[in-house]
């Protein structure tokens, strides 16, 4: 057998989808840090506010998406450009140890903050042994 077929392939995003609107989509840069009882995710999404951001959790895939209305500059010409405005999208796979009902999200100054609380650990059960 050829080596190629024996090798494991890394999973890409679940399904490659296309968008109906022809707007550029950017991947927001994130910081993720783990605290004692939660995982905190910060995502830079300039141009997004609390109404235009969408967070969905399907099975174990958490998807962040944000819509940006590009500012219209009628009567102006672009003298110098370094960036384009566009929507944001990024997905993360969550592990089972996250309490899905306790996820909190907030947006401030174009930064999305997600708090993903860790689920209560399975309680240890002590089994007493009786003497026969």
């Amino acid at each position, binding site marked *: 057998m050829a080596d190629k077929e024996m090798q494991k392939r890394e999973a890409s995003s679940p399904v490659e989808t296309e968008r109906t609107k022809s707007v550029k989509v950017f991947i927001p840069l994130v910081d993720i840090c783990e605290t004692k009882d939660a995982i905190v995710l910060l995502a830079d999404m300039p141009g*997004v506010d609390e109404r235009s951001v969408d967070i969905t959790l399907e099975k174990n895939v958490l998807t962040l998406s944000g819509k940006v209305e590009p500012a219209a500059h009628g009567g*102006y010409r*672009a003298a110098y450009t370094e960036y384009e405005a566009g929507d944001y999208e990024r997905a993360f796979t969550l592990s089972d140890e996250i309490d899905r009902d306790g996820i909190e999200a907030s947006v401030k100054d174009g*930064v999305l903050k997600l708090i993903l609380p860790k689920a209560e650990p399975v309680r240890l059960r002590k089994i007493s042994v009786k003497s026969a």
Partner: protein
Amino acid sequence: MFWPEFGRYGRVWSPWREMERLQQDVNRLLLRETPYASTFPAVNIWASDQDVIVEAELPGIDPGNLDITVAENVLRLTGSRKPEALKPGEVSHRQERARGEFTRSFRLPYAVDSGKVDASYERGVLTVRLPRAEADKPRKIEIRSQQR
């Protein structure tokens, strides 16, 4: 017949050692802290005959920590973005967002009236509107014609 050239440390010149040295140099360059100062924040400049609009993507910044100065036709943005310090027991998994201090300056298409500059910060986007200086505005010159 020539002897092989002796290297800096008296050792025989070896292409492998040269390559190793090159690799070390490249690694040193790549590992050096990337200076965000030159690339962050990204800026767009829009111009008309009357004023200039400068937009910058600066998510999550305290407007009080941002300095905007204008001199003649040069605009300068200076500020810093402090990362949230990790408390003991916290572990960082990813750090992709830009952090640290930044300074950027831009030459505008014409001199602006620094007294009338207006800046706003909304949804992580900074917008600075700079009206053109009166003295710099184009003036239409009427041509007198002597009719006979």
